[in-house]
């Protein structure tokens, strides 16, 4: 065997590389990772050791399907958790469908792909008018092009009265408006307390933060 700088253990780079590869290969039953580690003694120079180790990690990755599956599952789980979040309902404006301080599952991603539609309950960011924002949860009543008005306590969309069982029969009073492009008209179900498009008008679709699933 060639005499290398490595007496027992070798340089610091060798020792680090051996530890890294040993950890990466723990539990592996295939011989290939050990084969890469065994050659480490021959490699001289820190850069060469790093290159050899990087290749060894690729080998470890290749031969350990279990690890690959775990990492893939972790990535999927992260994506799911980033998409779906649970948040507290900030007000009573959506009662009784969503009670104040109850929790709701919010989808923060897929509505960006599918768009939002009438009837969707969304988390919406609304400017306070004083430079800040507040977050509200409301139901989409009108989308771009819809004309919304109220007649004897009932909301009408494009002249047709809506059937709104979720309001429990509360009367709604509003100013007629036609929703501009890229905007949404939203109302809280709890019409007597909700602050919504009746007060702050249609809001940009871009301010939707998520869609409430449950």
């Amino acid at each position, binding site marked *: *065997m060639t005499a290398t700088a490595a007496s*027992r253990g070798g340089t610091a780079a060798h020792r680090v590389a051996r530890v890294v590869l040993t950890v990466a290969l723990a539990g592996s039953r295939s*011989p*290939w990772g*050990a*084969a*890469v*580690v*065994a*050659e480490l*003694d*021959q*490699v001289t120079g820190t850069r060469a050791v790093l*290159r*050899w180790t*990087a*290749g*060894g*990690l*690729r*080998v470890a990755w*290749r*031969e350990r399907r279990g690890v690959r599956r775990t990492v893939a599952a972790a990535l999927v789980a992260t994506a799911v958790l980033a998409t779906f979040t649970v948040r507290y309902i900030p007000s009573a404006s959506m009662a009784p469908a969503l009670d104040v301080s109850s929790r709701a599952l919010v989808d923060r991603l897929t509505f960006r792909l599918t768009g939002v539609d009438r009837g969707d309950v969304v988390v919406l960011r609304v400017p306070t008018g004083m430079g800040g924002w507040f977050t509200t949860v409301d139901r989409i009543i009108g989308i771009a092009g819809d004309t919304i008005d109220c007649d004897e306590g009932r909301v009408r969309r494009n002249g047709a009265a809506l059937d709104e069982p979720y309001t429990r029969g509360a009367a709604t009073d509003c100013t007629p408006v036609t929703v501009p492009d890229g905007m949404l008209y939203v109302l809280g179900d709890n019409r007597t307390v909700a602050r919504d498009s009746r007060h702050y008008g249609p809001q940009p679709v871009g301010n939707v933060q998520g869609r409430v699933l449950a």
Partner: protein
Amino acid sequence: MPRLPHTSPQTLLVFECLLAAPDAWRYGYDLSRETGLASGSLYPILMRLADGSLLETRWEPAEQPGRPPRHLYRLTPDGAALAAERLARRAAAEADRVAPAARLRPRAAS
């Protein structure tokens, strides 16, 4: 048509290297040096060849106590035949690339 296996330039480098001394057992590190392939490219190739019974492997017991045994590689007869065939195929393809220019030039404009 599916791509022919064991024809990548990297695999051919390994074939050349192993065919240079077909009966010798070779170390992975030496193959890496001679082919210029990083371990992350070389070992997956060796793994594929071994999976296909084109490469045989054995462990060399450590000469000094406390040293890990080293892994050795040699083409099987099947592997050597396939390696020779793949290298010949590439040589033929290269000859084809150089030659046909002269053959194709006289072409009537329609």
